[in-house]
C-alpha cells in the first residue's frame, strides 16, 4: 500500500511513453502505387507523350478503336513492360495500366518478378485483397497486383480502377 503510488506512477509513465512512441497509422504515408522502368516512374494517369518521351521509341504499338468512336486504346509493348493508354476522342491520352513482363521493372520499393510472396508482405504489409494467385494493393483509384504461383511473384501489374 505504501509503494502503490510510485508503482501506479511508473505504470502511467510507461503507458504514456508507449503511446507517444506509436505513430498513428494515418500518419505513415502509404507507399505510392507506381512502377519504375528505365529510371522513369510510371503512374496511372500520366500523360502519354510524357511517358513516350521518357521511355523512348523502341516499342511495338497495337491500337483498337473504342465502340462508337469514343476513343482509342493503345498497347505499347517494350522489352520488359506493356503499357496501356486510353486516348479519348476529346482530351489527353493517359496511361491506364502497366503489366511487367520480366524483372526489368520494379516497384519503387524494389519488388520485382521473382520475389517471394513473403518479400511482398514484408515490404508492403497486408494486401487489400488476397487469393492463392493474387495480392492486390489499392490506393484511391489505382490497384497494384502481384500475381503469384507457388509463393513466388510471377507478374506485377498496375491498373486504374
Amino acid at each position, binding site marked *: 500500500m505504501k509503494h502503490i503510488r510510485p508503482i501506479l506512477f511508473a505504470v502511467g509513465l510507461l503507458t504514456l511513453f508507449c503511446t507517444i512512441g506509436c505513430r498513428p497509422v494515418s500518419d505513415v504515408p502509404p507507399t505510392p502505387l507506381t512502377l519504375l522502368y528505365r529510371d522513369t516512374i510510371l503512374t496511372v494517369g500520366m500523360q502519354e507523350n510524357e511517358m513516350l518521351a521518357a521511355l523512348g521509341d523502341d516499342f511495338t504499338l497495337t491500337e*483498337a478503336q473504342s*465502340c*462508337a468512336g469514343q476513343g482509342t486504346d493503345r*498497347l505499347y509493348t517494350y522489352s520488359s513492360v506493356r503499357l496501356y493508354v486510353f486516348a479519348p476522342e476529346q482530351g489527353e491520352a493517359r496511361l491506364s495500366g*502497366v503489366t511487367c513482363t520480366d524483372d526489368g521493372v520494379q516497384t519503387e520499393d524494389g519488388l520485382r518478378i521473382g520475389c517471394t510472396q513473403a518479400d511482398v508482405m514484408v515490404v508492403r504489409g497486408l494486401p487489400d485483397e488476397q487469393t492463392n494467385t493474387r495480392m492486390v494493393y489499392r490506393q484511391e483509384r489505382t490497384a497494384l497486383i502481384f500475381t503469384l504461383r507457388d509463393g513466388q511473384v510471377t507478374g506485377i501489374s*498496375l*491498373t486504374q*480502377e
Partner: protein
Amino acid sequence: MRKCRRLLGFAVFLCLLALFLGVAQVLLVPHDRAANPEAFLLYDYMESDAAADEVVFLGDCEVYEAFSPVTLWQNYGIISRVCGSPQQLLWHSYAVLCEVLERSDPRVVVMSVYGLCYGQPQSEAYNRMALDPLPLSAIKWQTVRASMTEGESGLSYLFPLLRYHGRWSQLTWRDVTTLFEQQQPVSSRGYLVKTGVKGALNSLPNHEGAAPVGDLSFGDMALDYFDRIVALCRENDVQLVLVKAPTDSWRYPWYEEYEAQMTALAECYDVPYYNFLEDFEAIGLDLTTDTYDAGLHLNVYGAEKLSVWFGQILTEQYALTDGREDEALAAEWQGEIDRYEQQKKEGENE
C-alpha cells in the same frame, strides 16, 4: 381588359420560347446517324414495328456485331431482332428489356454476358446511346439515376438541350440538312454489318497481352440487375438465354475467373448459358478471315457462321415459329434481305 392582354402576351411569349428551345434542341442534339451508326442502333429498334419479334438479343457489340437476324431468318425462319448498343451494361439491358416487353411478346431473350464484367457506370456517352432512344418512363428515369457517371445531370436526360447546348459552335450545314432527310436504318434489324477483313495473328481467339484488371469479380450492381432481368423474364414467361460471343482479345479479355463466375451464376439461376469460345472451331470460325479488327469483333462472315450455329440451337431447344411459311412475313423479310445484301455489297465495295 389590360390584364387579359398582358396574360395573352405572356402566353405568346412562353409559346415562342418553347418553340425556340424545341428547335434548338432538335438541332443541337447529335442526329447524323450516318456519321456514327453505332451510336444510333437503338433508334432503329424504336422506329420499327417489333410486335412479331420472337427472339430478341440484348447486350453490347458481342450481340450487335455477332448475330445476324437476316441469317437466322434465311436458314430457320426465326423472327429476331438485336436491341444492342455500345457497352450496353446490365442496367441498360434491363431498361431496354422493359421497353421490349411493352412492344412485343418474345419467346426468347438472348443476352450477352460481357456486361457483367462492369460493376459500375462507365461512360456518359454509352449511357446516352442506350437510354436516350427510350421513351420517358419510370424505369428509364430509375436507370438514368443508377447509371449516371460523375458530373452527369439527370435533368439533361429529360431536357437534352441542357447537355448539348455547347454544340452550337460545332454545328455544320450537315446538321441542318439531316433534319429534313428521312433517316435510314443504320443496321439490319439491329445487327451492324461489317464487311472489313483484318485478320488476327492467330486463327483462334486468345487474350494474350490483355490489360490488368484489379477486381475480377462481377460487381454487385451488375449482379443486382442480372437478378432483375431473370425475374422479369420469368414474370413474362420469356426464356432467357445467356451467351458469350466467340471473341477473346487483349482489349476485351474473357478471363477464366469470369467464366467460372458465369458458369456458377447460370447454374444458380438455372438459365442456359452458351460460351461460343468453346465451340469456336466447330462453328467454323477463323480469326484470320472472320474479323474486321484483328480479332476484337466478328465481321459479317463470322457473324453469319455464328448465326447458323446458334439458329440450330434455338430451333431445337425452343418452340419458335418458322416465319417463312407466312407469305406476308416472307414478303416483309425479303425487303430486309435486300437491304442486308445491299449493305454488304456497299461495304465490300468501299
